[in-house]
């Protein structure tokens, strides 16, 4: 008979999961061992491709085909006192199905796709109750309402008969949690449950999980790539890299006395982003009275749907300066950035850009010819390093394209491409390769090379680092600052991530629902915010230090009608 220590509920030993690929077996999980204790939270942390999600999926035997578990054991202490090895169960058998949902529940990253759009909330949560306990009818409805109350969904009596698409991302994730809790599981596996959410919503969900864990005494296996989240919620931490465990231990030890080099690097790159970049601290401040390079006044854009995406926005950028635009999804920051390049045409306002010859031109009303010139001086770096590079062109062709269109030819163009590639840290010898041969960080470097190819003066960087792993983020920012100093660039840096803004921006504008609620020097905004929304945003950011957990004491901003539901719920259902 297998035995486990008293408080251990799930014990994984030497777990190995592999995927057959064109070039042989890929070991996604390679000899991972850990123990999950009652009432405790174990965070599995790692960058993309580290195998943390596959580990979680292996426990429930829901690894995507053709992946399979090659070895190791997953021991689960059952409520009746026996111990079952989940790894030995048939993935489609009856035994594993009684475990799934009932004893081990899972919540996923994408609340959009993990709920069915054709069933009502109540039906979806009720399904679990019906399958595992056979609860039906009124009793089922009562239990579902109780669950919805537990996950703090407003007006549960109305919400129970709604469809998932009527809810915002955060609310959907609450529904997912309610579903997971339906059978009082002993173990909750949360696979990046807050990654797709805004930072303020993330804080709410983290608090909720913590609260429910205390109430139900669950063990939580929390998978994340965000060290800040780990520091806020973990009891124990497991650091993974390329399918292997790098280090594991109590959260204090991982953050303050990491033994492994990889862990040290990871913590280091996170902590680095907690302060301002050194090169920026050393640099002399930009003179206050320097004439602005771009001066935006009263800019507004309304979409055909009637949404005021950009609402009376005014801001300016001085030469050599980095202006950060921070805000949550839907705040209009990306739309505003795209207006600056006239990808969208704003209806009202002025965007006065000072040309190198001294005279100014309004981008909003510029004609075709002027616009073409302006777009050589104002460039853009895109968020998605995959989508923004044509997969059908070689890296050399991609970087050469703006040069070609600017009329540069032959040998000169080739040399310039090589020079640009070196400048952004790529080997010129790789110019014949296609984008698919590069990692995310390298693709973003290609995007930067394309942006600086025609010697611009202002670059609009739209979430340029958010698709990258944290260890690459600071490198990308360092590269951008190096280029800024070398080429005399100004940046408008759009991000939802306060830490990257704090790291490199001189000034920051906070956007909320199409408006700029606060503008100021980065230091002043970060340490002494004046607007309540800024305070709420800052206090919701997870702080990568387990000795200083703040998220549960955060400031909540709900002055301007919290958007709990994407569509406001009418008091009575109106089907007309």
């Amino acid at each position: 008979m297998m035995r486990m220590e008293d408080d251990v509920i799930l014990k994984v030993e030497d777990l190995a999961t592999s995927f057959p690929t064109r070039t042989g077996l890929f070991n996604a999980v390679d000899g991972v061992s850990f123990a999950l204790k009652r009432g405790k939270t174990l965070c599995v942390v790692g960058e993309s491709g580290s195998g943390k999600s596959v580990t979680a999926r292996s426990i429930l035997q829901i690894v995507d085909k053709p992946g399979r578990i090659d070895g190791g054991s997953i021991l689960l202490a059952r409520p009746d006192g026996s111990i079952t090895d989940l790894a030995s169960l048939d993935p489609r058998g009856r035994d594993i199905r009684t475990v799934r949902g009932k004893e081990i529940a899972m919540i996923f990253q994408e609340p959009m796709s993990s709920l069915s759009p054709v069933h009502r909330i109540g039906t979806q949560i009720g399904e679990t109750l019906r399958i595992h306990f056979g609860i039906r009818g009124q009793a089922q409805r009562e239990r579902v309402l109780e669950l919805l109350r537990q996950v703090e969904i407003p007006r549960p009596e109305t919400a129970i008969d709604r469809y998932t698409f009527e809810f915002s991302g955060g609310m959907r994730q609450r529904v997912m949690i309610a579903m997971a809790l339906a059978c009082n599981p002993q173990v909750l596996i949360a696979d990046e449950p807050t990654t797709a959410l805004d930072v303020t919503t993330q804080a709410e969900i983290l608090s909720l999980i913590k609260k429910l864990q205390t109430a139900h005494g669950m063990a939580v296996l929390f998978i994340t790539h965000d060290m800040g989240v780990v520091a806020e919620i973990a009891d124990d931490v497991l650091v993974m890299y390329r399918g292997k465990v790098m280090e594991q231990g109590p959260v204090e030890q991982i953050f303050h006395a990491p033994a492994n080099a990889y862990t040290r690097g990871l913590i280091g790159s996170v902590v680095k982003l907690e302060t301002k970049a050194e090169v920026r601290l050393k640099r002399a401040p930009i003179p206050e009275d320097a004439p602005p390079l771009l001066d935006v006044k009263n800019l507004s854009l309304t979409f055909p749907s009637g949404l005021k995406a950009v609402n009376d926005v005014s801001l300016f950028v001085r030469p050599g300066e980095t202006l950060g635009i921070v805000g949550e999804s839907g705040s209009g920051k990306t739309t505003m950035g795209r207006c600056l390049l006239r990808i969208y045409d704003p209806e009202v306002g002025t965007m006065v850009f000072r040309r190198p010859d001294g005279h100014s031109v309004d981008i909003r009303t510029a004609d075709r010819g002027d616009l073409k010139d302006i777009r050589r001086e104002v460039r853009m770096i895109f968020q998605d390093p995959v989508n923004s590079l044509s997969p059908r062109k070689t890296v050399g062709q991609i970087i050469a394209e703006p040069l070609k269109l600017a009329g540069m030819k032959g040998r000169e163009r080739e040399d310039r491409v090589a020079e640009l590639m070196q400048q952004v840290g790529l080997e010129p010898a790789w110019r014949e390769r296609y984008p698919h041969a590069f990692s995310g960080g390298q693709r973003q470097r290609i995007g930067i090379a394309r942006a600086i190819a025609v010697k611009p003066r202002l670059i609009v960087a739209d979430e340029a680092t958010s698709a990258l792993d944290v260890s690459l983020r600071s490198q990308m920012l360092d590269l951008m600052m190096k280029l800024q100093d070398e080429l005399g660039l100004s940046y408008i840096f759009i991000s939802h991530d306060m830490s990257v803004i704090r790291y490199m921006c001189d000034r920051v504008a906070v956007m909320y629902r199409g408006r700029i609620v606060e503008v100021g020097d980065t230091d002043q905004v970060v340490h002494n915010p004046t607007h309540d929304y800024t305070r709420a945003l800052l206090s919701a950011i997870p702080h990568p230090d387990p000795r200083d957990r703040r998220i549960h004491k955060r400031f909540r901003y709900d002055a301007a009608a919290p958007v709990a539901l994407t569509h406001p719920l009418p008091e009575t259902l109106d089907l007309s």
Partner: protein
Amino acid sequence: MTDITHLPPATEPSLDLHNRDIAVAGQWRLFWLKFKKHRIALLSLVVIVLMYLVAAFADFIAPVDPNATNARFTYAPPQGLSLLHDGAFHPHVDQLKMTLNTESMRREFTPDPAKPLSVGFLVPAQQPYTLLGFIPMQTKLFGLVDPKPGDSLYVFGADRLGRDIFSRVVHGAKISLSIGLVGVFMSLILGVTIGGISGFFGGWADIVIQRFIELLRSIPTIPLWMGLAAAIPVGWPPLRTYFVITLIVSLIGWTSLAREVRGKFLSLRNEDFVIAARLDGMSEIGIIFHHLVPSFMSHIIATLTLAIPSMILAETALSFLGIGLQPPIISWGVLLQEAQNIRAVAQAPWLLFTPAAAIVIAVLSLNFLGDGLRDAADPYESVS
């Protein structure tokens, strides 16, 4: 999972030796690598190539003239080809002995093993012919070594007039396989132009074109074909009729392609890399030809391949109904006309099964090939 990053980040892209050639592989190479994995599609490609070779060299492969009649061998059954005779390699068929059954008033054929007729390869043709229309030839791929009057070689039997079904099916491939290509080529031009206009200009042009497509698709096809076919003057030479039939078939066939092209235009127009090209100062025409067209070219090829079988089936249906091609032109549909009455089928089932098998094999192979191409059409989804 596809994007493995390093700490400290590697200066070399995350590639092992196997992937080094993938790194510099362009769109068409990746396309081929992915297509190769689809075994059935690969096999179908071989079948299709063989069929087109047969169609191109029909005069060489068909042992006899497809229009040569022989009253002696009305509804003669297939003669089994044997490779061995008296233990030695000697390909031959047995001579057919014909007796008249006076009760049923039918001719009955029995093979006579005592009289083997030698079959040889690269035998002299009865009449000189020109291969592909310009190469004068004197030999056939195979045939009777020394044909005398009364000898026969019917590999798949003979029809009502004693014509060789095998030779007719081989010649039918010429028309049946090419009518698909010509029709599809016209659909391509119509579909890409109209779909491109619809997707690129949008607005009113888009609405009008899309409603027109819906209208076209709502018309029942067979009555439409019949109406259009009735408009073809009876006195026209068969080849002109053939050309007009392809036109009629393609007039219906372009709609799905037009929608595909329009959809691609709409989805690609807002891709980041297209916006990036626009910001680089590229003109709209430049964007269409540098970015949009290469992006959906492979999709179009796949759609076209899937359109050929429907064209072949359309021709067959039209000809079978007697409103498409007419004898003396030989196509698979025309051959099936012979098998229209139940008596002929009961007495000589090879009239039905031989051309039908050719059609089924051609259509199935083209469909599998199209499936394989479609799966490979976007090679960037799984490679990295």
